[in-house]
């Protein structure tokens, strides 16, 4: 059986213009690797949105995903807390099993 390690996976749905700031915050708090995923469309309390490049991506959203150790996750999420309400971020945290745990 292949050896796995337990890590935390954090996924954040955010407006495209915020991506750069959030990536810098993640790196500052110990995140070593991340992936940015595109989204097509969605909806919620604030209405519907869709990826439309006509508005230069201002109405578009992306998902920032990272897998980290538990202490790094705590540090990053504490730093993120003041931004949660202000920028209406949607954050999910999942416990995952990864192969080659030293990489995360």
């Amino acid at each position, binding site marked *: 059986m292949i050896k796995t390690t337990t890590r935390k996976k954090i996924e954040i749905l955010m*407006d*495209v*213009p*915020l991506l*750069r*700031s959030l990536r810098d915050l993640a790196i500052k708090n110990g995140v070593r690797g991340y992936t940015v995923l595109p989204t097509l469309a969605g909806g919620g309390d*604030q*209405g*519907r*949105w*869709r*990826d*439309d*490049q*006509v*508005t*230069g*991506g*201002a*109405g578009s959203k992306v998902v920032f995903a990272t897998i980290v150790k538990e202490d790094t996750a705590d540090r990053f999420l504490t730093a993120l807390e003041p931004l949660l309400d*202000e*920028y*209406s971020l949607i954050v999910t945290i999942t416990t995952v099993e990864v192969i080659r745990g030293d990489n995360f």
Partner: protein
Amino acid sequence: METLLSPVILFFVLGALAAFAKSDLSIPEPLSKALSLYLMCAIGLKGGILVSDNGMTVDLFLAAIAGLVLSCLIPIGAFALLRSFGKLETTNAAAVAAHYGSVSVVTFVAGNQLLTDAGTPPAGYMIAVLALMETPAIIVGIFLARRNTGQAFQPGQDLLRETLLNGSVVLLLGSFIIGLIIGKDGFAPVSPVFETGFTGLLCLFLLDMGLVAARRLRHARNLTLRLVTLAIVFPIVNGTIGTTIGAMLGFDIGTATTLGILAASASYIAVPAAMRLALPKADAGLYLAMSLAVTFPFNIIVGIPFYTMLAKLMV
């Protein structure tokens, strides 16, 4: 009527009708992005070449100053009306006001095309005025929001980058400078790409704009009748002021109309991105619906012919 039956306008109407009819017609996003880059590049180059032909004139500096002043003052008047008549709270009023102080590149491009087709092309330097008018309103809008909510204005590095180095501003100004450097002779080899296909690609882009604007209107929430009224009153008033200033400064019909178009148009590229960073509590659905779904179609279908008629009366 001639303007309304131009292919550029008809494709815009087609897009809007298709979206209202809930057709599945759509332009792929990467193509839409590529078309917008192409249009900005082409219009920047053309402006630069015209200025390289005519040289730097006093009119260029007068138009730049007029544009800058309009861009700084329009948000202040708009903010007051949005608060009083529009019943918007401070943050939303400031965010919407910033959009009306800034400019819409596509309205400019469409106006430029229609004026050129009518034999009254604007001066090439108006592209520089367009680029200059993109950003001051963002600063004024943020200032209005922070001043009225008591928050200190602390522009982050990202906001500065978003404001000053926004892709559309960089491409417009960059292409304008390239046009200045290469002149008419240098443009000849690339003109098949940037000139021959221009109107056709503009039609495709406006088809997409029609789809996006109408869909935005269909899904707009919090867009009250008062705000729709303001989204129509703002371009009429600002466009009249801009055209009048252009006529008073002694510009030709095309250039005076274009100053009116710039004053009347509302941004939906540079400002929304900056507002998402600076005023995240402002309702993006609201300011995009006003600028993109109401003011933009109004300017394309009614505004541009109206400002042209005004300019013809005054010049």
